[in-house]
């Protein structure tokens, strides 16, 4: 025997297995519809091969699933075993054809038995499957037969016995920025795709629909509320420009919240429409792996549905972390709750120093609320610290109270003070920081986000995660340690957690999987913006990272303050805005880090990010003529280096 062609695929039988065949009682090789005749009876029992591609799979799970997919009745057996013989006799007596895999004849017996154990939690052989459902050992099989269940299963419609083994080509868990982008892209190549999305309500009961974090409780509502705060400042500035306000100006949280939620609703509806249009199936259900190619999806009513797919993408994102202190879930809110809060949060304590904490504290203060920020150690960990401190200073100057080096240890209800503890190791005592007449109406926790990977059955299918962080390590093609399972977006270890990154990764992955493309996602020089009251745009390395990578002597930092023309008339914040580039001296002063603090930092940064991708040098920057009068032109005239210690205070233009 050798190769035979079965429904368009080539079937290989390697010689070691053929030898084992000759030893066993089986002899016919049934390849799909082509039967190679042999001397055996018409009962067509035998070793049915399954279509195997040229990369010889040693993976036990793949082998088991392959056999299960191709054979209505599958028996994993041992030639010498009496119970195995009884099982075979049972099916013969029912005049049912079956396929047997004699494990004692196989080199990969261990892998297959391991896979069977993982799939069924049964170690004993024989192990019997009908229509891919596990019946059990001889005991259970004969009992099923007595009770008529066996016949019922046999009478069931043939399930997935064609080369299309699975319900779907692609199953995406998570309907956020990354998941939707990958799903839609895959659908354009004619693939059958299903997206599972489910939002577990917050402890406060907040929930939302399709679209993921960005649309519902992230970038979109955040920027809209940031804009609301900026407009407040603009109203104040406007008087210097001649506008005369007749009435007292105040902010109505409810109106803003409604407008923001309306917009989010229309975006979500747009996503639903786009998914339907692209023929992607969408299920509002919580997905968990229950088998190597099988997911259990549970909807809000508890109903379970099972799906199988050839390939999977995990795009489940993250959720805000709680502190694990008494009262945190009962009395605190997170960014998940903030943007749909029905009434103004009022006097709020923001716990944390992440960009989420500072952005939220920033716009809440901009709307006129009394805001304090409790910081355990440094601001914006991972970001350029020089810039982070300037952001903090600006917020402090504009009325935000920073409580540094403290952590909350207990949260009680609104009518009692909160208890905090100093984060200095030496102070191990609980201190009452505020007197009992001063308290907060709301505590917003923004101390980090945890990947949603712990309860989706990843251990069932063997996907490795970082046990401490929950994040999934992947290779350059976003592939996990299990070849047919991929991951994109915020769940990834060591990658920037940004919507455009997830979208790009998702699209390119779909193209690589289904359209023969080979472009991998480039995770370098990704521009970002922090929307604190003083916005911060950055692309490339921080000063700390560039020193570490190239050495302090090999980099040159050019910097300058600048004063936006628009702020001169209202006479505010001179010498607050700041521009900095980091150049690598050994490569013609190529710009390896771009940093800007100022209004519209995101708009300023986008163009420079493209230039950095082209390898822009300091000289090219200098040769670019600036646009006047705008903030970004400062980058075309940088001359003072940090090393020189020269004065960079600016008087405006």
């Amino acid at each position: 025997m050798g190769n035979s062609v079965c429904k368009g695929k080539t079937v290989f039988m390697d010689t070691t297995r053929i030898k084992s065949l000759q030893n066993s009682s089986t002899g016919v090789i049934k390849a799909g519809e082509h039967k190679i005749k042999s001397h055996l009876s018409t009962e067509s029992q035998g070793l049915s091969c399954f279509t195997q591609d040229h990369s010889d799979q040693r993976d036990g799970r793949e082998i088991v699933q392959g056999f299960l997919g191709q054979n209505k009745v599958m028996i994993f057996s041992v030639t010498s075993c009496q119970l195995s013989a009884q099982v075979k006799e049972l099916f013969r007596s029912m005049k049912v054809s079956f396929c047997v895999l004699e494990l004692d004849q196989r080199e990969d017996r261990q892998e297959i038995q391991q896979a069977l154990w993982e799939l069924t939690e049964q170690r004993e052989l024989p192990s019997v499957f009908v229509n891919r459902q596990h019946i059990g050992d001889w005991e259970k099989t004969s009992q099923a037969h007595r009770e008529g269940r066996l016949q019922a299963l046999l009478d069931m419609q043939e399930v997935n016995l064609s080369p299309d083994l699975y319900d779907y080509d692609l199953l995406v868990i998570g309907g956020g920025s990354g998941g939707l982008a990958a799903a839609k892209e895959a659908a354009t190549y004619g693939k059958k795709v299903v997206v599972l999305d489910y939002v577990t309500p917050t402890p406060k009961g907040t929930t939302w629909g399709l679209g993921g974090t960005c649309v519902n409780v992230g970038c979109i509502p955040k920027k809209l509320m940031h804009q609301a705060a900026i407009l407040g400042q603009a109203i104040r500035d406007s008087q210097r420009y001649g506008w005369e306000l007749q009435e007292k100006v105040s902010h109505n949280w409810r109106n803003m919240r409604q407008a923001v939620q309306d917009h989010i609703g229309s975006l979500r509806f747009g996503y639903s429409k786009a998914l339907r249009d692209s023929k992607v199936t969408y299920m509002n259900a919580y997905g968990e792996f229950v088998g190597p190619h099988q997911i259990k999806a549970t909807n809000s009513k508890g109903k379970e549905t099972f799906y199988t797919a050839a390939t999977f993408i995990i795009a489940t994102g993250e959720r805000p972390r709680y502190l694990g202190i008494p009262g945190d879930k009962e009395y605190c809110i997170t960014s998940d709750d903030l943007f749909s809060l029905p009434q103004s949060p009022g006097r709020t304590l923001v716990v944390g120093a992440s960009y989420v904490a500072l952005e939220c504290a920033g716009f809440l203060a901009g709307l006129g609320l009394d805001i304090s920020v409790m910081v355990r150690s440094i601001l914006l960990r991972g970001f350029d610290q020089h810039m982070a401190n300037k952001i903090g200073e600006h917020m402090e100057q504009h009325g935000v109270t920073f409580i540094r080096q403290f952590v909350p240890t207990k949260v009680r209800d609104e009518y009692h003070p909160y208890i905090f503890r100093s984060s200095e190791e030496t102070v191990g005592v609980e201190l009452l920081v505020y007197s009992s007449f001063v308290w907060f109406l709301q505590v917003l926790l923004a101390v980090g986000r945890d990947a949603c990977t712990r309860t989706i059955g990843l251990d069932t299918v063997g996907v490795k995660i970082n046990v401490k962080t929950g994040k999934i390590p992947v290779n350059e093609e976003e592939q996990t340690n299990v070849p047919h399972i991929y991951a994109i977006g915020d769940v990834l270890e060591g990658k920037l957690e940004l919507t455009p990154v997830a979208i790009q990764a998702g699209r390119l992955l779909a193209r690589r999987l289904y359209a023969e493309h080979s472009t991998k996602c480039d995770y370098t020089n990704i521009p970002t913006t922090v929307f604190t009251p003083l916005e911060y745009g950055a692309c490339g390395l921080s000063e700390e990272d560039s020193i570490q990578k190239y050495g302090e002597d090999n980099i040159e930092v050019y910097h300058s303050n600048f004063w936006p023309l628009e702020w001169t008339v209202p006479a505010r914040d001179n010498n607050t805005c700041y521009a900095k580039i980091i150049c690598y001296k050994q490569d013609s002063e190529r710009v390896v880090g771009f940093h800007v603090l100022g209004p519209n930092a995101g708009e300023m940064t986008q163009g420079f990010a493209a230039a950095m991708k082209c390898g822009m040098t300091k000289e090219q920057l200098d040769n670019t003529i600036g646009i006047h009068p705008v903030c970004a032109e400062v980058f075309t005239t940088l001359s003072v280096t940090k090393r020189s210690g020269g004065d960079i205070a600016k008087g405006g233009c």
Partner: protein
Amino acid sequence: MARQYEEVTVRGYDEFMKAVSQRKGKDVFAYFSGSKNEQGISWCPDCVKAEPIVRGELGYLPPGSVFIYCQVGERSYWKDPNNEFKKTLKLSGVPTLLRYGTPQKLVEEECFKKDLVRMMFTED
């Protein structure tokens, strides 16, 4: 089989708003079409095409909801950019199928897609 929804037919903006205000608190779906002539044919060809498709999905309307079939007026009235439907209800074209008080809206060719119509009637 008894219908689970209430169907209302109105002509013009005022009648539409009256029908809506009389049904506060209900889930109101509205289909806006160019008005039909004596032969029962609308001047808007897309509306003619979409109506059977939308009507075919009415069975998916949630129980207790309201379906308002609204004829907006003659072509000349519709073409005026200041007509009340465009100005106040922010309609951009006919046919339009929307869920009153929510951002859910299907406009023109979107109404030809029965999947989208069904999605709007069945999604929360």
